[in-house]
């Protein structure tokens, strides 16, 4: 496997590692963007209104379907309706499967994030004259962000791992090496493919961790610069008054 990975030809050839890495990333990214675009607003809305929680349950139930079975089912259902060139007939079912997998973690954690916002904080927001949308954007989302991120990160891991099934329908991605290696008994290639998927997932998670660090307010994440916690006169404003005694 190391030897296979060390062969520069395996990286740069057409259909080599670089190409498939890029395809894999594209499949995953499309699915994640679409899933987030759907789950995030809906999750915020459910959390804000405190209604429609059943949608979370439904989304979670979909996750229980077997991936490959679903893929084949979607392909069989959609293929007759897709005419024209290119990979669309394979790509569409793949993306749908990935999106269905990515939605539940993002949806559930967004709802939980909003529900976890201190009721006093929402009360104050509304009481100061914020409209519903302003409460969501200015207060609920920023405070829900750590949980939203944890949902997106878990969705990302899942989607990157599952995007290997694209190769099952003859598309590209790192799954290519896994399926081809298995079929041709080239186990070095198969294992290298699996390893690359794992590495890609870890790398993506690191990028998201970094993004989280820079978007979540320090007041929410609790990462305060040390000097404000130690050695400055925190207590001055609440020091007990000097008692009048004689």
């Amino acid at each position, binding site marked *: 496997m190391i030897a296979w990975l060390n062969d520069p030809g395996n990286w740069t050839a057409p259909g080599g590692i670089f190409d498939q890495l890029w395809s894999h990333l594209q499949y995953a990214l499309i699915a994640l963007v679409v899933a987030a675009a759907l789950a995030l607003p809906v999750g915020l809305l459910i959390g804000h209104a405190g209604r429609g929680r059943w949608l979370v349950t439904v989304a979670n139930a979909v996750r229980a379907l077997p991936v490959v079975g679903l893929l084949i089912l979607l392909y069989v259902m959609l293929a007759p309706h897709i005419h024209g060139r290119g990979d669309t007939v394979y790509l569409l079912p793949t993306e749908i499967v990935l999106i269905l997998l990515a939605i539940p973690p993002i949806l559930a954690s967004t709802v939980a994030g909003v529900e976890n916002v201190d009721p006093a904080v929402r009360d104050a*927001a509304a009481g*100061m004259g*914020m*409209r519903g949308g302003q409460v969501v954007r200015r207060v609920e989302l920023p405070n829900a962000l750590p949980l939203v991120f944890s949902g997106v990160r878990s969705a990302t891991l899942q989607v990157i791992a599952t995007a290997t099934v694209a190769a099952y329908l003859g598309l590209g991605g790192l799954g290519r090496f896994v399926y081809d290696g298995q079929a041709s008994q080239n186990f070095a290639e198969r294992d290298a493919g699996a390893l690359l998927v794992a590495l890609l997932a870890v790398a993506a998670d690191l990028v998201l961790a970094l993004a989280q660090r820079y978007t979540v307010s320090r007041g929410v994440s609790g990462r305060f610069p040390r000097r404000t916690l130690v050695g400055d*006169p925190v207590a001055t*404003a609440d020091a007990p008054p000097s008692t009048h*005694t004689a």
Partner: protein
Amino acid sequence: MIRFESVSKKYPDGTLAVDRLELVAPSGEITVLVGPSGCGKTTSLRMINRMIEPTSGRIWLDDRDTATVPTHELRRGIGYVIQHAGLFPHRTVVDNITTVPELLGTDKKQARRRALELMERVGLPAHFAKRYPAQLSGGQQQRVGVARALAADPPVMLMDEPFSAVDPVVRAQLQNEFLRLQGELGKTIVFVTHDIDEAIKLGDRVAVLQVGGHLAQLAPPAELLSDPADTFVAGFVGRDRGYRALGFAEAGLLPVRKEHAVRLGSGRGEAHDAAEDGWVLVTDAEDRPQGWLRTDRLAEAEPTGPVTAPELNLGGTLASETATLREALDSALSSPSGRGVIVDGAGRLLGTVTASEVLTRIEQQRAAADPPFTGDVGPGGAESEAS
């Protein structure tokens, strides 16, 4: 002015939280809503800014029926302070304070300048501006909550138990500063508390609510203490209301007697000679009382040398010459020598009074008062229902 016109609130589950409430909160005054838990204080308060919609009746803000104003517009013109402050955890102190000006589209720089000014007003050092709420104590958070409510300079403030989540020392401090602030700002304030002492301390007028949202009495605190409307109010106001009522009666000119005090650092012999009944009052160089010294013990400890601060008994409270009868009496009762210390506006010693002298003054005032100062022998006299 805020006026409740036969306002009722029935929750969907059938609870009648407020029942045909008639109430006026005059402009520029603090109106306190007080009553036992679940009597409908919060519900009444939140109906003013329509966080809760009344089931029937009207609430007027000056000459506007609040039901005719869009809620967000109404609320931006009403300061709102709640029990746990409800600060936005993701925003710094200064950003919390500028929330409403931001909603109103005020110039950012101007809003920040005003926020810093307000921080100073509510007693927060300027270097707190960049902190997050999680980095503040409960009392500090509450100050930010008050500053935030004041940021857009609303004429009306609603406060729901704003000081009840902090310890008693900080609470007293926040209350005093709140009164000082109100002295400067003159807002129309509706203040909810379940603590009758707080109500009496802060209210220009106190509305006592009974469970079911019935208004039992609306009166200035002194009147509430001296003339409770019924047994419920009498019981709620509590047992020691006679003593507390003294807090609303100025002592006037008390028969202050001259006290032979010695200064810190003066000789023990001098202290011995000045003492009366075994106690001598010790002052600093500016004549400000520092504590009492027990002279019959002096010789035992150390026969010679100067009088030092650690030897002093600090038990007595001070009353100023403009004190209430309650403060004057407390000064006498708390003093280890039995002589209550009276000081002038600058904290300098004027002299002392004894408890019996203060009591004589109380009796003189009662005799002069017409009708009698606590002629409370009606149903209010019964103490059995006291909480």
